[in-house]
């Protein structure tokens, strides 16, 4: 005997989710603000090479540490490089790092979390490992990892991903633990459905909404942490302008031209703020249960 189950297609479910998000965008002006700011930041960062700005690496020592003028909107840094151009270009690194860390950490965390939550025999081992990883402050772990691997954008991404994974694992695992006792999962087990199929068809889809919300927060945090890493000198290589690098290089000249730290800082803060408000909006829309988890 076979059971015929009416299932919504993947496309239909996706359309429903997008509808929910679009709806909340209309009702939530703060979230809309976040999305607009984010789009502007991403647009200006990735279109920067075509905006006719001075080369971000072009030095003109004669014009060093200039005040903002109509030509150099944010003034120049200690090598006479155009700060506005550097700040716009710097957004590329920050956004790429933020998005990659979010994507990598959630996918790795999802994989480990599903296994840990559903297969009890490995759970204890995995969770103790994760606890140990979590007990090292993430920024310190990231600094040590970059020191170990050498500074490059890929290494920064990896170094920021690893401390985030345990947090995702815990989130996914808690959802899985809740779901595995649900009747429909018990029924699937009783029907003899294979474990991978249960995980992918029945459990995975329910972990996605909280995971997306978590991903936005990880993304916001990664953008800040990239700046921290660059600021302490363990971040992206100094040849590449990133917000953290610009601020790190400029900190000796802060009292002459505060803009060298304040402009990239403001861009960074605005971007992270936008990601966070977007995340808050998504949380309210996708996952009302999570509201209490700040």
């Amino acid at each position, binding site marked *: 005997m076979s059971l015929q189950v009416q299932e919504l297609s993947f496309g239909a479910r996706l359309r429903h989710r997008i509808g929910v998000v679009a709806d909340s965008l209309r009702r939530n002006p703060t979230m809309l603000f976040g999305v607009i700011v984010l789009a502007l930041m991403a647009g200006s960062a990735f279109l920067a090479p075509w905006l006719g700005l001075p080369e971000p690496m072009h030095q003109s020592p004669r014009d060093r540490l200039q005040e903002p003028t109509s030509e150099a909107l944010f003034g120049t840094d200690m090598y006479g490089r155009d700060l506005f151009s550097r700040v716009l270009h710097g957004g590329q690194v920050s956004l790429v790092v933020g998005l990659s860390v979010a994507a990598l950490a959630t996918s790795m965390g999802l994989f480990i979390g599903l296994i840990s939550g559903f297969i009890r025999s490995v759970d204890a081992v995995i969770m103790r490992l994760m606890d140990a990883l979590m007990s090292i402050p993430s920024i310190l772990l990231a600094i040590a990892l970059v020191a170990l691997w050498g500074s490059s954008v890929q290494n920064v991404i990896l170094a920021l991903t690893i401390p985030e994974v345990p947090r995702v694992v815990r989130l996914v695992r808690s959802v899985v633990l809740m779901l595995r006792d649900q009747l429909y999962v018990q029924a699937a087990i009783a029907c003899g459905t294979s474990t991978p199929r249960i995980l992918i068809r029945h459990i995975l889809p329910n972990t996605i909404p909280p995971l997306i919300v978590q991903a936005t927060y990880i993304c916001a945090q990664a953008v800040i942490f990239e700046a921290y890493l660059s600021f302490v*000198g363990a971040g992206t290589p100094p040849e590449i302008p990133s917000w953290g690098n610009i601020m790190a290089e400029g900190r000796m000249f802060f009292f002459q031209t505060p803009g060298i730290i304040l402009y990239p800082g403001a861009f960074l803060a605005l971007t992270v703020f936008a990601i966070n408000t977007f995340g808050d909006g998504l949380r309210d829309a996708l996952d009302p249960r999570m509201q209490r988890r700040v």
Partner: protein
Amino acid sequence: MYVYILRRLLATIPIMALVAVFVFMLLHLSPGDPAVIIAGDFASEDQVHKIREALGLNDPLYIQFGRWMINLLQGDMGESIYSGMPVTKLIGQRVEPTLMLTLCTMVIAISLAIPLGVIAAWKVGTWIDRVVMTLAVFGFSVPVFVIGYLLILGGSRTLGWFPVQGYTSIFESVPGFLSHITLPALTLGAVYMALIARMTRATMLEVLNEDYVRTAYAKGLATRTVLVKHALKNAMVPISTTIGLGVALLIGGVVVRKRVRHSRPRPTDGRRGAAHRLSGHSGRDPGIFLHLCAAESRDRPDLCPLRSANPVLNPVLADTQR
């Protein structure tokens, strides 16, 4: 109760052991040979070998690990390879400023954040709520060091109220202590405040929907009493969890915070600093690295090991050294 506490404490032992292994491996995998660095540029192969032998770096890894663990458990954290001073002593010098900064940060953050959160929850949906919540999100969107620079610019440069750096012990002079600690504590407190305010609002909102709050209102209690005595008291459990967890965050923030204080007087401080320092000598000085302590910078400013990692536990250290 006591059994429960004991069990929880015992459960941390395997985790601590794992952490120790992690950190130890990290150190030994990192590039750079401490013997070469100590010997200096002009040392012969033979001299380097002797130093390596003396430090026990030729032994198998598990023996090195075992030796280190046994010493650690006896409270002997070893000596700094560079200065020859015991690490415990180096840590001891930093304890007071560290504790004071953490304490002040917590006092400021908690005393501002909880009332703000309560008010936001009470006036939910109004502009007050919006402003508080926007500020809170902003609080953890701005990197700590940017807040630090802003406060230095405002508080030290423009207003001239606070010194840019330095530390005075509270036992020497209370006003001096306060003027030195205010800016760092405010800077560090920003993120912490944001988290606590959000958590307070979220739990308060939940509690305010409870029946007993309605009952309290119905029997004619003043709003203040209901909010503080009935609602906040019950909301405190998740809030205090956040406060506890926030300490970890606080410690993480201290790293970067320190750089702000460091930055000005050290123009030679290269941009690649931390990575080089870590992989160079400091990271290879297990005694120092593992306890995140460094007075080295005082003895050998040219080496300045672990400038970036040591402040994790020693927020004000750079300033006490000068």
